[in-house]
């Protein structure tokens, strides 16, 4: 039930926004986050619950490499 899906904010209209989920668009309520057009959000049961951090997404894979390197010594 805690499934949440990432999408891109296309249009904001007050508390509602049009979100693009990789080709499929759907409206979602964005009152729990401060998101603007072009930003990524994660949507659960019709509500965006957080903004997605694109930079983090890219960097976390690098960070993992580091963790695994360190892990070699364990």
């Amino acid at each position, binding site marked *: *039930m805690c499934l*949440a899906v990432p999408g891109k904010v296309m249009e904001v209209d007050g508390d509602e926004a049009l979100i693009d989920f990789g080709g499929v668009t759907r409206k979602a309520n964005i009152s729990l986050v401060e998101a603007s057009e072009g930003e990524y959000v994660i949507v659960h*049961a*019709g*509500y965006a619950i*957080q903004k*997605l951090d694109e930079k983090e*997404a890219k960097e976390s*894979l690098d960070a*993992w490499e580091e963790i695994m390197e360190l892990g070699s010594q364990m």
Partner: protein
Amino acid sequence: MKSEMDNFKFRNKKTAERIVKKINEADVEMSFMHVCGTHQDTLVRFGLEQMLNEAGITIRQGPGCPVCVTTPREIEEVLVLAREGITITAYGDMINVPGEKSSLSKARREGAKVKVVYSVDDAVKIAKKIAEPVVFMSVGFETTTPSIASMIKKGAPQNFFILPCHRLVPPALKAIMEMGEIKLDGLIEPGHVSTIIGMEPYIPLSKKYGIPQVIAGFEPLDLLMGIYMLIRQVKEGRADVENEYTRVVRREGNPKALQVMYEVFEPVDIQWRGFPTIPGSGLKIREKYIDHDAREEFKDILEPLKEKDFGERKGCLCGEVLRALKEPEDCPLFGKRCTPKNPMGPCMVSREGGCNIRYRFSPHPVGESA
């Protein structure tokens, strides 16, 4: 075509193989628990469960499905309201959960007004169209609750009521630690609950019970990495709260969501299916918003239920499955008398339920389909 969303898909096979190799090299026998149906789905769907088992890692699933932990009493409550002719709205998974004798879907076949909704906003839309009362069966962990709170705070119509069946995750984790029924080497914390609550609420658990914790996302790589991070903690003798899901989960969670959640609701002691009452693990509506509380509005109708005791269906092991003591296959009814088409317990109903997931992804006898 590469979609922009691919940046958020953590499914690279090479990386997965590397992590699994590292887990294998660690050469350990460990047991971890998660509390999220979506984690279970990823583990089973992508065959990670078996891969991990071969590497000495056992993953137990705890009470990670809000539909499954809803008690027979709460189901009876909503059924009583439905039989009174009140319009009931609920998430799809909820309507097939069996109560003592019936379910919302059965009640609907008998003429009750039961409507499936995707979000609380849909339920409110229904309330706006009619004059009669509409009750929303409000289940969910911290991931879901802020949306309900936000709707109520904004000003829902006067004929809109919720039947709060919410649960909070950290108090349940504490209860599991206290009960000490299973030996665990670490906890995989649910990414989307953590999106709301952040990292702080888990810290006391690590401090008090010396248990390593990692917040993990839902892609296969997220879970593998989360597990690897737990192994590392155990090996290094640490018991910290770490965050694997950094692209979504912030240390402080979502303060706006938390604020509205606690403005509308306050913690109460509540029972979970399979568990005794867990202190501070439920939520009730605060006095200020009591006008939208179905338990208040329909007090008289619900009153007779107070005296009654509601047991589990005979033979159903959901309680033990939810406490991570038993696997679905341990239940003699699994795949035989109990299937997703004819569920005997909530763990087989919900797509997040342990029995349902195991059934859908395992080969089953001809003539039985998920």
